[in-house]
């Protein structure tokens, strides 16, 4: 929805409640905006300071001489209506209200007052009671922690911590994010607005959604039916204890677990059970194209890794690709006897980048392979370049498993991730992510 571009693409922003005290969020957020290298103009607002973090501080929004597109608000709850009224008069188009103390704390009337004001001035608002917004293409980290790396994963979260954790993992792994939005109380902008926006956002490839309850079930289903990009969901409250906790956390009335599972199957959403699966699926989908089928070919330097992968493939209802007899004969004649030709294809300790490349290119001529899963079980330097080259030459998708490679593994993984090639640190996680995301695609067709 282009309506939200006034938020994500804002060319100027004011931090109301900007602070020089490093223990305050008004300091942390402004500092992240500055360190993140925000592309637009920043105006700190704090009547008690002349300078905040070295920038001229304005006593109020109306004292800022130029236009302000976005207001990031971190002030005491009872001050928020006045600040928003001022923002409206100033012509501010969007707001992120980080301040808490609204309906989540029993202050319903206060929240309604704020909503009334933003409706009057047609301001789009995220929050209140949220952890802010990060949109890396605009280098706008109006949240914490500081995450700068651009990637294709957009994270929408009803928990600030979940969004922060997912984003940080993505950055640590060299994958990055396109956006992190903390939903907070969803008094205006909710998951539907954001799903629609990121579905059309050219910087986003896949959407990760942590949600304790949907705002409107029917509208959510209508939206899900229209989405073109993959959506990975973590929706807690699967047990009675979890439902109770969700009710306390976000006032959520959650439905039945089996109903949500049905909804995901019906509408092609990827349902995950925990943070690990949530991250792995979002990561895979933000990096790969649609998988064309479920036949996986393993090419491994590790016998153990290959065995683990075989079990995972069968248990997760994927398939081991079959290599034609002709090709097997040819490859057996070409390579040393201690290689295992087939699936898994075991290169043993002889494995090196050139060998991986050569064999994957040869096998790519086979019709029955949909996905290559090279398993690197040793510190083999240079596999990243080899796999990236192979990727350019073949039609099949590549999902790498790298484990037991210590420091070399870290370096090679980073190289691959920066080029958009997904690497998982265990055969199971690689296969599980493929299987979970593949099911989604197959149900759409």
């Amino acid at each position: 929805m282009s309506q939200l571009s006034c938020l994500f693409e804002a060319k100027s922003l004011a931090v109301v409640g900007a602070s020089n005290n490093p223990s305050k969020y008004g300091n942390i957020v402004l500092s992240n905006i500055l360190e993140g290298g925000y592309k637009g103009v920043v105006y700190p607002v704090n009547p008690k300071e002349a300078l905040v973090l070295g920038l001229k501080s304005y006593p109020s929004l109306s004292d800022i001489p130029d236009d302000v597109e976005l207001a990031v608000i971190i002030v005491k709850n009872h001050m928020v209506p006045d600040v928003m009224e001022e923002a409206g008069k100033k012509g501010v188009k969007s707001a992120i209200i980080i301040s808490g103390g609204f309906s989540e704390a029993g202050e319903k009337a206060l929240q309604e007052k704020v909503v009334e004001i933003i409706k009057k001035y047609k301001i789009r608002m995220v929050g209140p009671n949220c952890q802010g917004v990060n949109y890396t293409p605009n280098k706008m980290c109006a949240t914490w922690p500081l995450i700068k790396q651009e990637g294709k994963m957009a994270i929408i979260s009803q928990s600030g911590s979940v969004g922060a954790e997912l984003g940080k993992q993505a950055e640590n792994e060299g994958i990055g994010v396109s956006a992190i939005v903390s939903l907070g109380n969803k008094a205006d902008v909710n998951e539907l607005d954001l799903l629609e926006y990121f579905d059309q956002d050219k910087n986003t490839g896949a959407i990760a959604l942590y949600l304790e309850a949907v705002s409107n079930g029917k509208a959510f289903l209508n939206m899900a039916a229209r989405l073109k990009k993959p959506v990975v969901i973590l929706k807690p409250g699967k047990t009675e204890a979890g439902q109770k906790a969700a009710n306390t956390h976000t006032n959520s009335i959650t439905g039945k677990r089996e109903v949500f599972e049905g909804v995901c199957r019906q509408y092609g959403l990827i349902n995950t059970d925990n943070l690990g699966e949530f991250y792995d699926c979002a990561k895979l989908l933000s990096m790969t194209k649609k998988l064309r089928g479920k036949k996986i070919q393993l090419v491994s330097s590790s016998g153990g890794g290959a065995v683990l992968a075989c079990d995972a493939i069968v248990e997760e209802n994927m398939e081991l690709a079959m290599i034609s007899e002709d090709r097997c004969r040819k490859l057996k004649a070409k390579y040393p006897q201690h290689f295992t030709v087939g699936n898994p294809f075991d290169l043993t300790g002889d494995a090196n980048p050139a060998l991986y490349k050569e064999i994957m290119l040869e096998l790519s001529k086979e019709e029955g392979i949909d996905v290559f899963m090279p398993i690197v079980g040793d510190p083999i330097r240079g596999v990243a370049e080899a796999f990236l080259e192979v990727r350019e030459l073949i039609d099949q998708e590549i999902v790498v498993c790298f484990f037991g490679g210590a420091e070399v593994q870290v370096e090679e993984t980073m190289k691959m991730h920066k080029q958009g090639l997904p690497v998982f640190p265990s055969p199971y996680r690689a296969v599980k992510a493929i299987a979970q995301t593949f099911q989604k695609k197959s149900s759409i067709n």
Partner: protein
Amino acid sequence: MITAVKQKEMLLEPEAYQILRKYDIPLPASRYVCQENEAVAAAKEIGYPVAMKVVSSEIAHKSDVGGVKLNLENESEVRKAYCNIMKLAEQYGHCVDGVLITEMIKDGVEVIIGCSEDAEFGKYIIFGLGGIFVELFKDVSVRVLPLTSFDVEQMISEVKSSKLLTGYRSEKAKYIKGVVDIILKLSKLIEEENIAEVDLNPVIVREDDVYVVDARVFVY
């Protein structure tokens, strides 16, 4: 957030049958009667063996109070069953409206088809194989309304125990198309009528046909 709980009311089984018939959902031949002699005549008309089920707005779980008699082979068994049901109802202090005499449907795979309402996503259909598969293994699948025949086929094949329908070991494949048909008709019924909850349990699926043998329908 507190939503008002809407009052729901269970229809008597003959009423439930009526609404299901309106949507062409297959039911065994049946007669609703209020006297012993009528019961005998109804059984004869339907053809032995028959089943007899108590009809009472005060009894939700008929078999728990001995209100269901199966495989009645002749007139004397019908009379005995009728007296038995009336006596039991009296013992429990339930007011009885009558009994439903139905054709006996035997020798098939039992499945359950239900409809209920979810707090977030509204009306949904639930499917599973009967008995322990639902109760013990929770082997069910769910789809929310509206649904397509593709959704229904998927939800049937999705339950682990669906192999019992497609032909397990020496068993022949069962009439799955008939199950799909019932679910689609039920979803139409739910969208058009003021229905709160439906519990078709069991639905008996045989090689060439399928019947809803027991139906509980709740309306607002």
